[in-house]
């Protein structure tokens, strides 16, 4: 068995009362505090003992006289703990406390208390800056929020905000504990060093654990966002895709792929985002060689959360159908179907929603999109 044990420190020494109580509980188990490092607290194995541990703001008992007096009363200096404290221990149950006057103890914490208040203000500012950094580009973007979350690969970066917020919550918890401890002393109350450190420890473990899980989740999302998207030409495509064939809609044998057209005009792009893990953008264009060139763009989204579908449909209608005449259609197998007509431009825009599926069709041609409900149903029933 090794002579020393290393333990990860979830409790910050700034949370004075709980940190001291934790060390005392460890001593009762036979783990005697040795030192603190970046890799946790080191404990020496020994006989279970009742030892009092006390944190004193660094530099308070710096004179040789005060150090001698500490030793005289059985208080051993164990070294610096973190940036702010020195640790003292005493195994003599009859020795007086390091602090025998709670109000005076609160004076000893005054300078540190001011520093903590500044940290708390800086933390609040940092949180605001962080929120602004993440949210301002979204709020300033001409793309509506939900559409941005659904379509943008960078929307996944919002997950990074969550681990950051979890860490900020942890720091806020620590500062609150310190200020509560100081307030109790000011009121003349001696904070109890009881088993409440266990509850505090459990709460302190949550934010780093949540941050770790969220960070891992973010890495998985990042991998998916980077690795899953693909694109290709419609001609000769071997993958199944949801589509409504422009050729079938037009039913005109004279139509075909126009000559000299850039290859990317009849293509499909697949995208993956956390909010919509299945997204297709399909473009089709045909020509009869006599000047008629119908086009059909399809935006097909399968959302992760069904409740996002109706608001996304509303955003798409607002964005793409705002200045057109809107007609609600009754199409079998669909919860919502809205047609935006524009007679002058000779085109139609159709917005469909069923469950977690949202489809937007932008058609430019002489046919009626709603005249082929069979094709629309097939488009919406696609399952990869």
């Amino acid at each position, binding site marked *: 068995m090794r002579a020393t044990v290393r333990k990860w420190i979830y409790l910050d020494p700034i949370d004075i009362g709980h940190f001291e109580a934790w060390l005392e509980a460890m001593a009762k188990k036979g783990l005697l505090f040795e030192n603190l490092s970046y890799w946790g607290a080191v404990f020496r194995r020994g006989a279970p003992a009742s030892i009092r541990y006390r944190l004193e703001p660094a530099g308070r008992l710096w004179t040789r006289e005060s150090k001698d007096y500490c030793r005289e009363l059985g208080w051993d200096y164990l070294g610096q703990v973190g940036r702010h404290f020195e640790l003292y221990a005493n195994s003599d149950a009859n020795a007086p*406390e*390091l602090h025998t006057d709670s109000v*005076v103890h609160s004076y000893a914490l005054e300078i540190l208390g001011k520093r903590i208040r500044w940290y708390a203000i800086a933390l609040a500012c940092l949180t605001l800056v962080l929120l602004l950094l993440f949210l301002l580009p979204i709020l300033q973007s001409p793309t509506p929020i939900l559409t941005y979350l659904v379509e943008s690969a960078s929307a996944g970066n919002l997950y990074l905000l969550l681990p950051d917020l979890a860490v900020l919550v942890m720091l806020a918890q620590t500062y609150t504990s310190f200020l509560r401890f100081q307030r109790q002393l000011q009121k003349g109350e001696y904070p109890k060093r009881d088993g409440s450190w266990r509850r505090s420890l459990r709460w302190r473990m949550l934010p780093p654990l949540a941050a770790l899980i969220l960070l891992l989740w973010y890495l998985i999302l990042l991998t998916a966002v980077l690795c899953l998207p693909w694109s290709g030409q419609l001609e000769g495509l071997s993958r199944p895709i949801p589509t409504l064939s422009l050729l079938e809609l037009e039913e005109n044998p004279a139509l075909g792929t126009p000559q000299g057209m850039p290859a990317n005009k009849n293509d499909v792009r697949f995208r993956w985002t956390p909010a919509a893990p299945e997204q297709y953008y399909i473009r089709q264009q045909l020509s009869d060689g006599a000047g008629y060139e119908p086009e059909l763009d399809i935006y097909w989204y399968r959302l992760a959360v069904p409740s996002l579908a109706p608001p996304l449909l509303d955003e798409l209608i607002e964005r793409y159908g705002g200045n057109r005449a809107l007609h609600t259609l009754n199409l079998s197998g669909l919860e919502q179907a809205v047609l935006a007509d524009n007679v002058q431009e000779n085109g139609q825009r159709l917005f469909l929603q069923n469950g977690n599926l949202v489809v937007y069709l932008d058609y430019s041609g002489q046919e009626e999109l709603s005249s082929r409900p069979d094709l629309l149903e097939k488009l919406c029933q696609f399952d990869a």
Partner: protein
Amino acid sequence: MGRKTLELLTESMFYVLMSLLKENRCGTEMAEWVQARTKGRVRLGPGTLYTILAKFQEEALIQETAVDGRRRTYTLTAEGRRRYLEEVARLKACLDDAEDETP
């Protein structure tokens, strides 16, 4: 923001001032004197003692008169004496009130 001044003397603070009334003393001598004077009722832990000394120096209630090796000797200032007497008067008034009310 200005420095927070002492609003009230606690028992430990009061006895530290009292320990310097007749004699200049170093920290440990003050602690011993207070313990003896109060028959062990008031003990000054090292954290408390040296925080009081630092606070009193800040407030100019005491001042350091000599450093002899490890010993730093302190004396009461005029302001410290005034503050002590003020506290004595306050405590006396409290006691008088208590005596008047006691049947």
